[in-house]
């Protein structure tokens, strides 16, 4: 647990002998005061002893409280209960004395238990406060993780649903194609059915094309969500987000960020997706390497009024031919890939008037980099 268990304050501040010393002192003070007050009252003014008992119990706890009851009893008996200056008690004073002792005990008990509940309450409140702040911190962390995760998921879900959307008309086209062959193979060939079938194939093919242009439009339309932000921050967040995954895959992620980069105006979530996608791709590529350092380097700097972000990996690399192919929709080199990540990433970057391309890395591996135009803030284009 993070918090220190708060020991009752009385115990923490005062040591054992100190607490009993308080009992002695308060009773002594009560005695002196009562002796002084004797001149003004016809009867001994014993109430001050109750005060001493309550104070001892309050500050010292149950033990010192009872201890002060004991010494108060002795002192009262000695000084104020006839016969005076003796510990003996005359028969006539017995009831009076017993009442005093009972009252003192009650005072001690009330005071110490009141104190106890007060300490417990404070203790509880302290704990509660610590728990609340812990939970708040946890919640904020979870929320941040969720935000990131939902972006990863949306990319995966998006590609899955695109695949489904396109696969349906494709299935229809292929199936109609088979039917077409059958209608033509009949004797005599059923030309009317063939014609109808081909018409449907045209419809389904057109529908598949419409799905793709809808996706393209999706990324172009989302342009208004642009805002100024620091690319370094995005990269830093993503490296933190991917740290566990990288450790699990034994890949080291390094960053080389020029501090104080000019902020760019762009859709932060979309750019997060792009950088995340490039980093995930890099990690996938590195996963297949052996005998070379397994690393991913993300750098960001300004070059000719453009922001340049590079994601370098020490993975399997790519040749000049695949370097362009990988940006085509549905081209993938991964066994379970759909081939949409880079294509979508490129649309995003291009909708921000930037460029995304890949080059082989001289030392082995690949470099994926993109540029974004840097504009003066005033233009606010």
């Amino acid at each position: 647990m993070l918090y220190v268990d708060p020991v009752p304050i009385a115990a923490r501040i005062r040591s054992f002998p100190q607490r009993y010393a308080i009992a002695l002192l308060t009773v002594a003070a009560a005695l002196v005061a009562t002796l002084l007050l004797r001149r003004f009252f016809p009867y001994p003014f014993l109430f001050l002893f109750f005060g001493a008992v309550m104070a001892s119990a309050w500050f010292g706890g149950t033990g010192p409280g009872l201890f002060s009851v004991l010494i108060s009893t002795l002192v009262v008996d000695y000084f104020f209960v006839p016969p005076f200056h003796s510990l003996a008690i005359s028969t006539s004073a017995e009831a009076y004395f017993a009442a005093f002792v009972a009252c003192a005990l009650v005072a001690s008990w009330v005071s110490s238990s009141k104190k106890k509940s007060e300490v417990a309450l404070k203790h509880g409140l302290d704990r509660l406060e610590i728990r609340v702040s812990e939970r708040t911190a946890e919640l904020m962390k979870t929320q941040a993780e969720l935000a990131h995760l939902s972006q990863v998921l949306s990319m995966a879900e998006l590609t899955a649903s695109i695949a489904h959307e396109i696969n349906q008309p494709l299935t229809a086209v292929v199936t109609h194609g088979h039917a077409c062959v059958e209608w033509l193979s009949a004797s005599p060939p059923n030309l009317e059915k063939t014609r109808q079938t081909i018409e449907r194939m045209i419809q389904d093919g057109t529908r598949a094309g419409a799905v793709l242009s809808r996706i393209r439009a999706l990324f172009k339309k989302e342009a208004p969500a642009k805002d100024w932000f620091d690319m370094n921050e995005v990269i830093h967040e993503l490296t933190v987000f991917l740290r566990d995954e990288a450790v699990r895959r034994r890949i080291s992620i390094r960053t080389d960020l020029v501090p104080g980069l000019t902020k760019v105006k762009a859709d932060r979530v979309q750019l997060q997706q792009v950088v995340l996608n490039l980093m995930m791709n890099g990690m996938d590529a590195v996963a297949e390497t052996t005998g070379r350092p397994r690393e991913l380097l993300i750098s960001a700097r300004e070059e000719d009024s453009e922001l340049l972000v590079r994601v370098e990996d020490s993975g399997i690399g790519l040749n000049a031919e695949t370097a362009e192919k990988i940006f085509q929709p549905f081209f993938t080199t991964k066994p379970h890939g759909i081939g949409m990540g880079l294509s979508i990433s490129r649309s995003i970057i291009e909708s921000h008037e930037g460029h995304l391309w890949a080059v082989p890395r001289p030392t082995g591996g690949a470099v994926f980099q993109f540029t974004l135009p840097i504009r003066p803030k005033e233009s606010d284009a």
Partner: protein
Amino acid sequence: MPEPRPTIFVVDDDASVRDAISNLLESVGLQAQLFGSTEEFRNAPRPDAPSCLVLDVRLPGVNGLDFQEALEKAGIFIPIIFITAHGDVPMTSRAMKAGAIEFLMKPFQKEDLLAAIDQGLERDRVWREEDAQISSLRERFRQLTSREREVMDLVVTGLINKQIGAQLGLSEVTVKIHRGRMMQKMQASSLAQLVRMSDKLKPQLRR
């Protein structure tokens, strides 16, 4: 009696896919009935003919695999061919374990679909044959008198007429008469055949 024309039921939420499958089946002379949801399929009357079901895995509201289970629970036995855009190994193995004929990835090849449909219809024919036999046996059994049923129960356990007579308190000759009528009504020509019939009449653990 000529066999009624087989029907292939197609359940897919995508109209163009349904339409294409129906076109393909029509082009090879098969008859299809199309449904956009499992609900529609459940509520539609099914003709008394060999049939099988071409079922999409991803359907709105219900998963095709769950629907397969639901059909079985409801005592509706129909050979199923799954089609899906994104199948994986666990999905396939679950479907096949539950008795699916085939698990096809979209877009599928004509030969694969037609072969699966043939196999499905063949399986359904066997099931229908068995069902027909059992219901005809039940019909024959219903015609037996209670005495004849008692005699049949004891005959199939391997007892001879004398023992049966002793158990039922009848003379050997009476048993013989009941036995003869019973064999005739059941259309059994031998004791062995009668035993097989009796086995089939027992409450069936279906397939």
